[in-house]
């Protein structure tokens, strides 16, 4: 565990800290666990858990050791690539909470995920299989072709050609399906993609070679077609691996949204029911720390509710009987009995999903580089080949030779380098982003990010960490703060958490006094009696000033600490800015991105945050639809917009924007809508992602230029009829290697921006929730 504490603790703290604050992890019930499990023979079940904190060999041993030691567990296996844990256990006499408890003891948070989806990736397996077959065929045919090139003649050459045909035809028929199917699908819809010229070249090359072989001709292209297929499959597999990795990483982040809730039946019994089965009018029981499953009204109980994920407002709201709550709100204190108002299909969440889909379809279509290249490239190549055929046929009168040369043009212009140009760069870029804790959803996101020229930020949870921090913590009386911390420890209200943290940071000289009869009053605060030997002791209260103080005449904000109704201290809080927030805004401003804050929070609070962060442009009190309108207005003015946001209310805006980034602490829907997700606390991830996307874009364009250069040399040779199979093999391998090497340059040396960020990171270790951000500002500006 030693390396975990040192090297990767930042990542884990970010993940674990965010989770603890935003979504107090709650052990899933046995019903939920079994619903997500896969039954095995002999009564055991296999359950998959996402354990985001696993990141090294020490973690593997610790997790497998701890879980494997439980009596009901038959086997535990960690998959480090997907950060998942597969546990085989016997459910009959066991409590699944023991698994969570065992992981919790060694400091790992886990949540069960659907075992059905964790079955492995069939497409990838198929691609690797095709890659293996193509590689085998390419190697063996090349072996025979080298003999032919070095001078085998007569019946030996024919024999070698026939053996090549025997290997090549089944290999192309099987492994080529990765291209034939999409090509066929595109043609049927009357569209053109890169797979069409590839398929055409493959099929024609094999057909003409077979004819040549039957005629005892000197040239057969079996080696070229199979090697081509092998290279192209490498590109296709890399592309798929990248998408799959991002997808599974995002799935791992997904927390258990309440897929059900505890329903109070007519006879008072409490039963767990799936989300879809909850009807309006059902009475629900939501304990402290749980999320509200559907839009509901409070029947009984009082408490504080955190609606930040739904509305973007940073302060928890006190609710009592009659109050309405949106689905997704987090119940912070006190048990609530609710009445469901709407079924899950019409909840606030579902409304956001509908808005998200509408925004998605209204967004300007982006055509990927590869598709644009294909639509430009394929007609030219086919036209050149056709012209060659006509030209040679009319000039020489030998129509078979004309066909042969036209096909050799198609083979040599086959977009081998072009098909590798984009995926290789994107895989390398995704790898770099991954090392900086940024997950990329797919290649298109990388391409759109590179073209962005305006950036919009949400406030709560994005520019700020979304949890309050005690103001002026250093000037507080340490003894009183220790007392407040001792009281606050008994509540999970965000203000209490902030007070506890501040008190612990003091390393209190005096031990906090012993407290008796500690009681949380939902919606008001925490009270306790001081155990000072006297009967009863003094009554201490920490909470809403109106409740804690006898003299509540004036309307005071903040949290009061009182003794027998007399004020001892008043604490005020602010939502701490994310590390690097001010520096990021300054850099974007200097680069002409005109960053703007769009928030659902009150105007005053947004103005205050904008002032702290040095942001010139801000809008407050926005509804989700207003955010979309703002994005569409910018898009209408010809800009490409990057949206950075985290809340449920940001999800439609995230999908309306050209590119989008969300922190890992974002709502599930937000993370799914975003093209990028960053795992670390610092907002400089946005700058890094922009930098890498732009460099990837210039490398892709360079690769296209290299491919064009290659064709400018190769096409005249092919058209004039000088291409032999040896020339084709050399030219195609050469161009592929050049393109791949160029793509790998993304790994060599960091860009200017990344270097500046790394320097800054070395000078001042990023301290979350510390005001290090303003200090970073001049450095970033200097680097830019």
């Amino acid at each position, binding site marked *: 565990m030693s390396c975990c504490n040192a090297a990767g603790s930042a990542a884990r703290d970010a993940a674990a800290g965010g989770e603890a604050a935003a979504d107090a992890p709650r052990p899933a019930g046995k019903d939920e666990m079994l619903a997500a499990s896969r039954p095995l023979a002999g009564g055991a079940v296999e359950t998959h858990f996402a354990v985001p904190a696993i990141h090294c*060999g020490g973690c593997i041993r610790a997790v497998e050791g701890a879980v494997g030691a439980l009596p009901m567990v038959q086997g535990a296996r960690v998959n*480090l*690539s*997907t950060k998942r844990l597969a546990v085989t256990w016997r459910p009959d006499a066991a409590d699944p909470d023991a698994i969570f408890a065992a992981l919790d003891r060694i400091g790992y948070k886990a949540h069960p995920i659907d075992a059905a989806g964790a079955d492995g990736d069939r497409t990838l397996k198929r691609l690797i*299989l095709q890659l293996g077959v193509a590689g*085998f065929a390419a190697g*063996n045919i090349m072996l025979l072709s080298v003999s032919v090139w070095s001078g085998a003649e007569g019946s030996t050459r024919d*024999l070698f050609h026939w053996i090549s045909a025997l290997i090549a035809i089944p290999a192309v028929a099987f492994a080529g399906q990765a291209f034939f199917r999409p090509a066929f699908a595109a043609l049927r819809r009357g569209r053109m993609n890169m797979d069409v010229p590839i398929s055409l070249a493959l099929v024609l090359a094999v057909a003409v070679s077979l004819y040549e072989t039957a005629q005892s001709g000197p040239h057969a292209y079996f080696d070229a077609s199979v090697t081509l297929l092998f290279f192209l499959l490498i590109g296709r597999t890399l592309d798929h691996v990248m998408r799959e990795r991002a997808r599974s990483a995002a799935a791992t982040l997904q927390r258990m949204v309440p897929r059900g809730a505890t329903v109070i039946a007519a006879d008072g019994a409490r039963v767990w029911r799936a989300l879809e089965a909850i009807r309006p009018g059902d009475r629900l029981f939501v304990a402290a720390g749980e999320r509200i499953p559907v839009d509901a009204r409070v029947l009984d109980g009082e408490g504080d509710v955190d609606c930040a994920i739904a509305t973007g407002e940073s302060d928890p709201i006190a609710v009592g009987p009659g109050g309405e709550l949106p689905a997704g709100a987090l119940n912070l204190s006190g048990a609530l009995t609710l009445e469901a108002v709407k079924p899950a299909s019409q909840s606030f969440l579902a409304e956001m999903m509908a808005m998200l889909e509408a925004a998605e379809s209204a967004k300007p279509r982006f055509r990927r580089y590869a598709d644009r290249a294909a639509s430009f490239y394929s007609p030219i190549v086919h036209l050149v080949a056709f012209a060659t055929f006509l030209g040679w046929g009319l000039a020489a009168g030998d129509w078979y030779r004309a066909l042969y040369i036209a096909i050799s043009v198609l083979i040599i212009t086959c977009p081998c380098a072009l098909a590798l140009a984009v995926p290789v760069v994107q895989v390398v870029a995704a790898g770099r982003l991954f090392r900086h804790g940024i997950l990329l959803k797919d290649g298109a996101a990388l391409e759109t990010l590179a073209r962005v020229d305006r950036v919009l930020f949400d406030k709560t949870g994005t520019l700020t960490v979304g949890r309050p921090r005690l103001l002026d913590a250093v000037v507080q009386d340490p003894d009183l703060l220790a007392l407040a911390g001792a009281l606050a420890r008994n509540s999970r209200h965000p203000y209490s958490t902030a007070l506890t943290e501040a008190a612990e940071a003091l390393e209190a000289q005096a031990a906090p006094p012993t407290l008796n009869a500690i009681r949380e009053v939902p919606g008001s605060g925490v009270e306790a009696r001081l155990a000072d030997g006297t009967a009863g002791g003094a009554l201490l209260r920490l909470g809403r000033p109106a409740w804690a103080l006898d003299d509540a005449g004036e309307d005071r904000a903040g949290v009061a600490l009182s003794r027998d109704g007399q004020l001892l201290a008043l604490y005020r809080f602010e939502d701490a800015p994310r590390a690097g927030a001010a520096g990021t805004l300054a850099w974007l401003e200097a680069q002409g991105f005109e960053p703007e804050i769009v928030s659902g929070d009150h105007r005053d609070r947004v103005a205050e945050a904008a002032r702290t962060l040095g942001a010139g442009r801000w809008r407050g009190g926005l509804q989700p639809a207003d955010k979309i309108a703002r994005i569409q207005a910018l898009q209408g003015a010809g800009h490409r917009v990057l949206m950075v946001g985290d809340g449920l209310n940001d999800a439609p805006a995230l999908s309306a924007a050209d590119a989008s980034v969300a922190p890992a602490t974002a709502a599930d829907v937000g993370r799914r809508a975003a093209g990028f997700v960053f795992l670390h606390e610092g907002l400089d991830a946005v700058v890094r992602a922009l930098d890498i996307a732009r460099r990837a874009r210039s490398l892709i364009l360079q690769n296209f230029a290299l491919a064009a250069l290659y064709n400018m040399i190769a096409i005249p040779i092919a058209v004039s009829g000088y291409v032999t199979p040896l020339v084709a093999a050399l030219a195609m391998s050469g161009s592929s290697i050049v393109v791949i090497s160029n793509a790998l340059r993304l790994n060599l040396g960091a860009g200017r921006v990344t270097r500046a960020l790394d320097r800054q990171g070395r000078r001042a270790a990023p301290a979350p929730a510390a005001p290090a951000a303003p200090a970073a500002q001049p450095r970033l500006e200097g680097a830019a």
Partner: protein
Amino acid sequence: MSHLVFLIPAALLLGLIGLAAFLWSLRSGQYSDMDGAAWRAIEDDEQDRRIRRAERESEGG
């Protein structure tokens, strides 16, 4: 020419053995966790640890 009768089938057979080995490794899930496999290779297993402890004790005593 006659030696080709043996050499070519031999070459193809070797290639096929390689392909079969690759397919077997793919099926048995050896590519499902490349990062984990890299770490597991340098982990001591239980027996190694016991041997090393015994060695340390014998050196000390």
